[in-house]
């Protein structure tokens, strides 16, 4: 696998966004998109599974902060780059709370994500991270 074979270059980032109702049963759709996006930038099978777990945990952390009964939704954005993905999962917040960093979901997300960051402004709460393609040694 070489830089030349990468289907997206650093100068040609491609962005895919999915918006789902803020309900548990729709989180599987974000995982499915994560798998597709990861395939586009040629992540390894192990990396793809880790990415799916990371976006799942991000959604798990954000769902309690969203008002599901009032058209609440989660948005997941994947920026496909030459060497990996930038991921953002965000929601219009219903409370002033931030993602719970004391539980298992955060522990797992921290172990899986690079450049992990919480986005916090007046109307939106989100989690951003990246996942880079591993250099495969032969």
């Amino acid at each position, binding site marked *: 696998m070489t830089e030349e074979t990468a289907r997206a270059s650093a100068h040609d980032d491609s962005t895919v966004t999915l918006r789902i109702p803020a309900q*548990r*049963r729709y*989180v*599987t759709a974000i*995982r499915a998109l994560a798998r597709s996006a990861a395939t586009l930038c040629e992540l390894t099978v192990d990396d793809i*599974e*880790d990415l*799916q*777990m990371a976006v*799942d*945990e991000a*959604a*798990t952390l954000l*769902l309690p902060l969203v008002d599901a009964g009032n058209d609440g939704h989660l948005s997941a954005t994947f920026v496909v780059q030459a060497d990996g993905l930038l991921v953002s999962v965000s929601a219009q917040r219903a409370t002033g709370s931030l993602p719970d960093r004391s*539980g*298992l*979901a955060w*522990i*797992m997300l921290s*172990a*899986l994500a690079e450049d992990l960051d919480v986005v916090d402004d007046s109307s939106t709460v989100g989690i951003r991270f990246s996942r880079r393609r591993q250099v495969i040694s032969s």
Partner: protein
Amino acid sequence: MTTFEVSAAPGEADSWVLTIVGDVDLATAPEVLDAGNDVFAKAEPSRLVLELSGVTFIDSTGLGALVQLRNLTQERGIALLLSSPSRSVSRAMSLAGLADVFGLSEDTDGAGTS
């Protein structure tokens, strides 16, 4: 959408087997716990076996359900055994620091016989 199924059946000797197939996430994890509670309501096995070879994905919520099942079996003096954990299960437990709790060694991805 991934198919998810959990089923309970009497196993060998004095055991019950919970077979879990598909993605165990925040949507389906409660069903795992419900299935365990159903077993405890109708039987008093000496051993509960979780058959996990068909688990295609598990997250922190799913792991939480397994931890709750483990606590419930301990309260009842029931032995809990993980059978053929899939690679997803082994990976998630390793990340969560739960591999030792469930008797899985860190380097046994896809451990167990199929």
